[in-house]
């Protein structure tokens, strides 16, 4: 059960630095006792690793794999009822079993942590500066208040907060998410720790902000020389950043090794599945993703044998008999590559990859795709759509003090059988655009034509009819299904509303559930009995009930784990082909969009800055914002990722209540920064319109648009 990594990382010379490991974890088990008669939850079952000074270890796994719990155990921050056994050593000193006082002395000074959600991670009633000062002084009680305040400002400066002296006096709510995460990093490095544990530090952030934060983390590591344990579910983030990877499944490490070995010489089918199910930004060919069937096992009722066996396509009876040990596999460049699979030697001998192990689903070609786009019917036409929210002030007498330009002149169209991906950072107006389209009301300005009928001019009866043809799938499958309705009723509701014959209702619901890959026998269950991916399938079945022609998908897969996400994406593609649907697909994950979309529109501060064929946008983006956005996305390919240079944008998305003059992207634009005074004039004075770049119907809103390869 025990496995400790002792070999060096394969990364740079820093990682190869010899010396004793800083943090060593051995045979760590964490069990949460079940309340009452419920069984115990075995969250972590035998994790072991060690990190050296300057080394970065990545821990990868899906939600519930125990990756966070094991690091919280290292910090001594698990709830009191957790049973922790094994060994956690910091510089050889055992941490497990230390009392709160002794552990507090280590926490924040020798071992520090950066958490996932920066929005709730800072105490709202203290200034940012005070919270950093507290971190400094708790370990240096003799340090004067003024000296600590100076140190806080230095730290804020180090993590890239502009005007640090002034901003130190601000409260957390005055900072954006990315800025708060910088503050969290400043707190973590305040006392020069030897180990920094980062628990999904960029998951809650936009890609451009993620790129900034990863840079800050690299700076932090350079400054402190600390070892970093990077916990994430994003295989792209891990690829470019870490030296070694530990893949976790059901509370156990299943594959461990140097990053290149794990990515290029994968020996465990689960790791293969993970890598195969990630939509790739860097591959042009449109192959279906490789989903891992089924769901992770419950940690309170694990099956005997390999916990991955029920989902593994190459599992044998032997796999189900006994849980495999983590054993050394050869063939790698760096040593210390281990995998917990009894068929690993076979995989190695045969040189199998994900494509060999997993059956690749076949998805046909949509019939509409054979017709030229211009000859197809336009399902949705949006022209100059505007949505401004007034900003009001005052309690009794409200007066208008400003305007939020949420959607400010957006135009696009969707042809039959086409998928348009609408992408942009949070706050850019994607969701507002969707809501305006779905409201079917007259926009403040501009027009929305759905299937040839204009919003705001329809009678109530026509509106009702259009609602049949335009359906929506929401982001969060946990909250978009009524928990008190049976799945049957959830799917049947739109049918009943639109007067579907009662005697055919059950047959239709069964057909729909079958269509989205659910067992019709489960129609009598409640939504909470299903996993996230299954719930999203229920949401899709509900949306499909009335045989719509246009499906509006608002971040349909962003709340799902990658292996589950792949299945839902494949389902959406298959449905499009089978039912001839058109999709408006809103997402912030550009890899998903590249995979599923035919055309892509990139939004920034309420406007579309670039729109065109998917291959064109990803292959040769012309707008500097699109370029930055694409460049910021890490690719799950270590060699490629190390060779890439990311364009890191400065600052945050400006407030849509106060957009800059001229081109809205100007203050963050890397191109603008390189222009001469004279060349800058149009950017400052004239807001650029979407102009054709000369190829296909690709247009970009930049005065200096120029195609460039960034992926």
């Amino acid at each position: 059960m025990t496995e400790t990594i002792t070999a060096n990382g394969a990364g740079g010379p820093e990682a190869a630095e010899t010396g004793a490991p800083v943090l060593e974890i051995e045979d760590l088990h964490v069990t949460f006792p079940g309340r009452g008669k419920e069984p115990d939850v075995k969250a972590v079952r035998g994790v072991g690793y060690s990190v050296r000074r300057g080394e970065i270890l990545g821990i990868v796994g899906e939600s519930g794999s125990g990756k966070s719990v094991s690091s919280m155990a290292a910090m001594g921050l698990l709830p009191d009822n957790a049973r922790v056994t094994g060994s956690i050593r910091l510089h050889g000193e055992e941490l497990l079993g230390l009392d709160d006082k002794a552990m507090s002395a280590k926490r924040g000074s020798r071992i520090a942590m950066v958490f996932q959600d920066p929005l709730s991670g800072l105490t709202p009633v203290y200034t940012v500066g005070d919270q950093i000062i507290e971190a400094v002084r708790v370990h240096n009680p003799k340090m004067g208040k003024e000296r600590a305040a100076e140190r806080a400002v230095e730290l804020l400066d180090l993590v890239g907060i502009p005007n640090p002296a002034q901003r130190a006096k601000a409260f957390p709510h005055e900072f954006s998410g990315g800025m708060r995460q910088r503050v969290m990093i400043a707190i973590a490095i305040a006392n020069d720790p030897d180990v920094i544990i980062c628990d999904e530090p960029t998951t809650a952030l936009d890609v451009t902000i993620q790129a900034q934060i990863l840079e800050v983390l690299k700076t932090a590591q350079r400054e402190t020389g600390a070892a970093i344990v990077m916990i994430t579910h994003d295989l792209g983030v891990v690829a470019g950043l870490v030296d070694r990877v530990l893949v976790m499944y059901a509370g156990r490490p299943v594959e461990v090794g140097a990053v290149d070995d794990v990515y290029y010489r994968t020996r465990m089918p689960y790791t293969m599945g993970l890598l195969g199910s990630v939509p790739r930004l860097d591959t042009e060919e449109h192959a279906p993703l490789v989903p891992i069937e089924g769901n992770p096992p419950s940690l309170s009722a694990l099956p005997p044998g390999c916990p991955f066996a029920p989902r593994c396509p190459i599992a044998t009876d032997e796999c189900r008999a006994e849980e495999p040990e983590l054993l050394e596999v050869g063939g790698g460049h760096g040593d210390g590559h281990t995998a917990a699979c009894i068929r690993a030697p076979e995989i190695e001998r045969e040189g199998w990859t994900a494509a060999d192990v997993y059956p690749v689903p076949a998805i046909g070609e949509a019939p509409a795709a054979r017709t030229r786009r211009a000859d197809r019917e336009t399902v949705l036409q949006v022209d100059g759509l505007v949505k401004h929210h007034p900003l009001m002030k005052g309690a009794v007498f409200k007066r208008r003090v400003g305007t939020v330009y949420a959607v400010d002149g957006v135009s696009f169209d969707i042809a039959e059988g086409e998928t348009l991906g609408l992408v942009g950072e949070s706050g850019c107006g994607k969701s507002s655009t969707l809501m305006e389209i779905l409201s079917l009301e007259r926009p403040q300005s501009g027009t929305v034509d759905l299937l040839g009928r204009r919003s705001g001019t329809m009678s109530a009866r026509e509106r009702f009819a259009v609602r049949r043809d335009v359906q929506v799938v929401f982001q969060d499958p946990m909250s978009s299904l009524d928990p008190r309705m049976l799945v049957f009723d959830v799917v049947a509701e739109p049918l009943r509303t639109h007067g579907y014959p009662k005697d055919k209702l059950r047959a239709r619901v069964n057909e729909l559930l079958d269509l989205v890959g659910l067992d019709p026998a489960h129609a009598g269950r409640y939504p909470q009995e299903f996993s996230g991916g299954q719930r999203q399938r229920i949401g899709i079945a509900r949306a499909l009930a009335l045989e719509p022609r246009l499906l509006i998908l608002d971040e349909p897969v962003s709340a799902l784990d990658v292996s589950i996400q792949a299945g839902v994406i494949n389902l959406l593609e298959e449905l499009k082909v089978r039912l001839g649907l058109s999709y408006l697909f809103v997402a912030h994950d550009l890899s998903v969009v590249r995979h599923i979309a035919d055309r892509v529109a990139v939004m920034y501060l309420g406007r579309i800055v670039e729109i065109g064929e998917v291959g064109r946008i990803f292959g040769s983006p012309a707008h500097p914002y699109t370029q930055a956005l694409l460049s910021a996305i890490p690719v799950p390919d270590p060699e490629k990722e190390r060779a890439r240079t990311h364009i890191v944008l400065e600052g945050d998305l400006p407030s849509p209540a106060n957009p800059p003059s001229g081109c809205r992207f100007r203050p963050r634009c890397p191109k603008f920064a390189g222009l001469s005074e004279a060349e800058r004039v149009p950017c400052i004075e004239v807001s650029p319109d979407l102009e054709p770049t000369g190829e296909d119907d690709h247009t970009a809103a930049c005065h200096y648009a120029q195609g460039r390869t960034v992926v």
Partner: protein
Amino acid sequence: MWLFLVRRLVNYLVLIVVATTCAYLLAASALSPRVNYENQSPRPSEAAVDARLDELNLNDKTPLAERWMVWAGDVVTGDFGKTVTGSSVNDQMEIRVLVSLRLIVAGTVLGATAGVAIGAYAAVKQYGLFDQLSTGAAFTVLAVPAVVVAITLQVIAIWLNGAAGQTLLVFNGEATPSLDAGFFGTVWDRLKHMFLPTVALALGQFAVFSRYQRNMMLDVLGSDFVRTARAKGLTRRAALLKHALRTALIPTVTYFTFTFGVMMAGTTFTEKVYNWKGMGSWLIDSIATNDVHAVAAVSCFMAVCVMAAAFLSDLLYAWLDPRVRVG
């Protein structure tokens, strides 16, 4: 920030005026001082009664608006009028306000602090013995009317005194009449008299606050910022006190104003039961004797108290949550 407080203060003044006026109008139309004279024997002549009532500005033959104008004109100059017996309301108030305030302030401070502390600690030890005991105690007090709590305490005191064979606890009046024990002796005597009624009042406050604070505390206990504080190196205790409790106190402080009104009602019973000559007992006595001006004066006092509590909670809020000061 200061502007905000001044605005609130002006708001409260308006509310006090409205509340007092309403109380006056209600008392003047519902209570009939004339009955007091008609029941006397020998029964005075109607003209004599009218003359006496006119003198006191209590004659129900005068239009209500007119009486109110006269009364309000006096109140503006600080004169709350005369009682039905002709004595000055102000004189009575001077004595009684101090009596009541002593009880209210002590009861509130004790009850609220104990409630917050016990509630917060119970949350930290959720489902533990302390939590279960304090929950049981709080629900018992909440389920029992204030009068019963007050009387039960008296019964317990009697039993204790009997068991000890001497007067450990006093439960009648504010002080021993005609006591001559020097300054400290008098203070000690008053404290002894205060003990039981204060506890009776504080119990109700404790019950409400402990439940509320426990819930607020439970909400923040698992929050990310408490975890961050511990990750910095604060001990569990320090993180809970400095980060969790501070944040969890903010909603409780707003709640303070609401519970204060309920407590004022509790004061009335407590004063009655413990035979204190305070504002609360005066209110009940005045209603019984059709004393319109006394009722209005007590109502005004209670309005001022509630508004003072509201203002105090504004101040506390601004102190606890600096975001109010910035925004």
